[in-house]
């Protein structure tokens, strides 16, 4: 059953050095405040898992929290590059970053397999792409393959299997929770349900804690018994958004380009805006 705690306590209890952490939210409901708390608590050697690393992982990578990134699209949406991600891959700054990359469909299905208690999922995908042989390419990190062919036992057709993702911790942001820790979110739902259900532990930051979750169109409800910690962090998705509560701060996404392009500007940003800040103040 979910405990309702402070963000600092949730991160302290749920996320440990070396953990595989999935902070999900597909453009919408990205748990930025929780990400900043992880930076503040100086977690190291994390395997960061996320379909779209977005600014949140650019920040964690730049802050030196990550050893490995598992992802499918690492850009600043509508703006350009994730410069901290690029700097880590291209120049190993602040440290080398191992990568394991997939398509969106592959990542989504890896979460589905994890949430379903299966070791793999099947899709039509990857055939003919170099993603299929990433481990064998020059200067790759040569990790175990997570994409393999699989034959249909009925038709003989060859399809593609992807390995399940089973993170140690999922971190998501939601609109609301009730006092029993039942969690509710709506709008673009991404893979957050699958991320939580595939993970051993979970942290959910919410805009509001309410007495009762009245049903909402398009809502996803995660019962409290599937959640480890809930923290009340209004605005905790900024500069992403929480439909019905906040709007996406597109200017922030644009401004991030300049901050992140330069190691010094980024380091200054970390020291001014993350390390000293209380939870939820990016």
């Amino acid at each position, binding site marked *: 059953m979910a405990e309702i705690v402070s963000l600092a306590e949730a991160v302290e209890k749920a996320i440990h050095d070396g953990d595989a952490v999935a902070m999900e939210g*597909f*453009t*919408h409901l990205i748990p930025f405040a929780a990400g900043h708390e992880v930076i503040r608590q100086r977690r190291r050697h994390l395997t960061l898992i996320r*379909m*779209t690393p977005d600014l949140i992982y650019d920040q964690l990578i730049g802050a030196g929290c990550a050893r490995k990134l598992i*992802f*499918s*699209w*690492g*850009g600043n*949406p*509508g*703006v*350009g*590059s*994730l410069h901290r*991600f*690029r700097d880590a*891959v*291209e120049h190993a700054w602040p440290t080398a970053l191992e990568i394991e*990359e*997939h*398509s*969106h*469909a592959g990542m*989504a*299905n890896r*979460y*589905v397999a994890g949430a379903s208690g299966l070791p793999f999922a099947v*899709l*039509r*995908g*990857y*055939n*003919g*792409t*170099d*993603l299929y042989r*990433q481990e064998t*390419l*020059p*200067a*790759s*990190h040569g990790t175990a393959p997570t994409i393999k062919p699989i034959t249909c036992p009925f038709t003989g*057709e*060859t399809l593609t299997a992807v390995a399940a993702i089973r993170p140690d911790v999922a971190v998501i942001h939601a609109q609301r929770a009730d006092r029993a820790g039942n969690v509710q979110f709506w*709008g*673009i*739902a*991404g*893979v957050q*349900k*699958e991320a939580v259900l595939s993970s051993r532990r979970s942290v959910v930051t919410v805009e509001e804690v309410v007495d009762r979750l009245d049903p909402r169109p*398009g809502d996803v409800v995660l019962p409290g018994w599937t959640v480890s910690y809930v923290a009340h962090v209004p605005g905790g998705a900024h500069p992403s*958004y929480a*439909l019905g509560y906040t*709007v*996406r701060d*597109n200017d922030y*996404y644009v401004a991030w380009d300049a901050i992140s392009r330069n190691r010094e500007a980024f380091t200054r940003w970390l020291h001014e805006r993350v390390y000293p800040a209380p939870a939820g103040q990016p």
Partner: protein
Amino acid sequence: MTDQVSLNRAELSEPTYTADEMMTVAAARALRDGMTCFVGIGLPSAAANLARATHAPGLVLIYESGTIGAKPAELPLSIGDGLLAETADAVVSVPEIFNYWLQPGRIDVGFLGAAQIDKFGNINTTVIGGDYGNPRVRLPGAGGAPEIAASCREVIVVVRQSSRSFVERVDFITSVGYGSGPGDRQRLGLTGAGPKKIITDLGILEPDPVTLEFTLTGLYPGVSAAAARERTGWDLAVTAEPEIMAGPTPAELDALRSLSGGIPAPRSHE
């Protein structure tokens, strides 16, 4: 008659539009009303929304964020903007949009961008230069593109043309066009028909019916085949009589500009 007069006036007073605007208009014209269209962000999204605002009001826009039938009044900056969800016929999870909607081949057309593209329409959005694990330029990666390229009934690529981006051989195959030529899509089990058009800021390329090599078949007003060949990294074939496409109509330009106040730069693949 009025339309014709306007068109002539627009043509007389050229240049009243940018090359990017022409490209977006040309891409929009490739979409027919009532089609279902899986839309990538950036130029493809601008073109698809322009089509919906002009000749194809019944165009069904599907974004990988799970929004089916989105009807944004202005261009979204990201694929997951709230206005996509709020205007959609249905919002589904990300696993569902790929598994139930894209994968079975029920989407008519996939609209993709590219960082590099080769003569068989294979697309690279992963790495440029160096080695895979130590690249000169790390691009964002695959996103939804590989399966859009594999599973939509057909694919249209919208990309600015340059000898750096139109290459003999892409540095990394992120999304498959025709692979190394005829028969490859069938051999790879890719269910869609593959890329039917590459729409650039100079004109339109289409696959040769026999070799599947992309060939220049259309040019915008004022662009020469020689210019297009110069901005192509392979020895670009040109069809016998490339069609000279009509420039944007005032209605198209008005609709495009009111969607966005300009076209978003497709910088996410740079």
